[in-house]
């Protein structure tokens, strides 16, 4: 294993992580809700009639407007998406369907679940990390 010292950014990663943790902390303590993005978005598709829509839509809007706010103060960091269009479509469907079937994603299981020391979320996190590692290995080292 070789560490990518050029792209490795421990300090900004930790700072950003603290902000993500702060957001999850505030959402559970003030709203009594888990900051799981797939659960929040999925809930919007699930029950459009109930009064549960407001906080979900507001949280999603905050996420979407974050880069707009960031851009008003500084230059947005680089965004590089190497995947082609067809792969992106397939990946999006897998991520959306998989997160709902598995009841969570990197935020719900990875951040909130591990913070709650939930064995269920640990299994989910280890599973999606494992298939993520295997997928990238296949793309980068087997088929190229």
């Amino acid at each position, binding site marked *: 294993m*070789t*560490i990518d010292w050029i*792209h490795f950014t421990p300090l*900004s*990663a930790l*700072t*950003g*992580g603290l*902000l*993500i*943790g702060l*957001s999850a902390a*505030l959402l*559970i*303590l*003030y*709203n*009594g*809700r*888990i900051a799981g993005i*797939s659960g929040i*978005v*999925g809930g919007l*598709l699930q029950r459009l009639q109930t009064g549960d829509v407001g*906080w979900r839509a507001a949280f999603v*809007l*905050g*996420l*979407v407007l*974050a*880069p707009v706010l*960031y851009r008003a103060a500084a230059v947005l960091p*680089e965004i590089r*998406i*190497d*995947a082609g269009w067809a*792969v992106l*479509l*397939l*990946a*999006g469907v*897998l*991520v959306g369907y*998989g*997160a*709902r*079937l598995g*009841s969570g*994603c*990197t935020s719900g299981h990875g951040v909130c679940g*591990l*913070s709650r020391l939930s064995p269920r979320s640990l299994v*989910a996190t280890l*599973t*999606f990390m494992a*298939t*993520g590692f295997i*997928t*990238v*290995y296949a793309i980068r080292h087997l088929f190229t």
Partner: protein
Amino acid sequence: MSVLLSFVFGLIFGLGLIVSGMSNPAKIIGFLDLAGVWDPSLIFVMAGAIAIGIVAFTLARRRERSLLGAPMQLPTARDIDRRLVAGSALFGIGWGLAGICPGPALVLLGSGSAKGIVFTLALLAGMALFEVQQRMRQAASHSPDV
């Protein structure tokens, strides 16, 4: 009030994703590429988030209502079943293919990235597919009581 605060919390989450570098799919792929030159940044993001999360959820567990008086809705599911593992496995494959998960997808959408928009639409389609399947299953199991 809770809606306004939710907006602010979403904003903080999104800023965290941008600052941490996690809204850049190339950085996620750099983490998932163990056999290449490996970028361990994601571990530091998780560590920072979980350090605060552990304290917050410990406090949350002691309360029945949130600071705004809403019911504390902590997950109750405990079973580790096929659905959890299969869903997470599919999620990981998609995550590895694009380097994008749901939070960063919404940030990419807001940044105006064309690929981010397409990914988010596909993500919503995948979630909708799950909802349709759930409803069909429910309809099939409840069919006699019409």
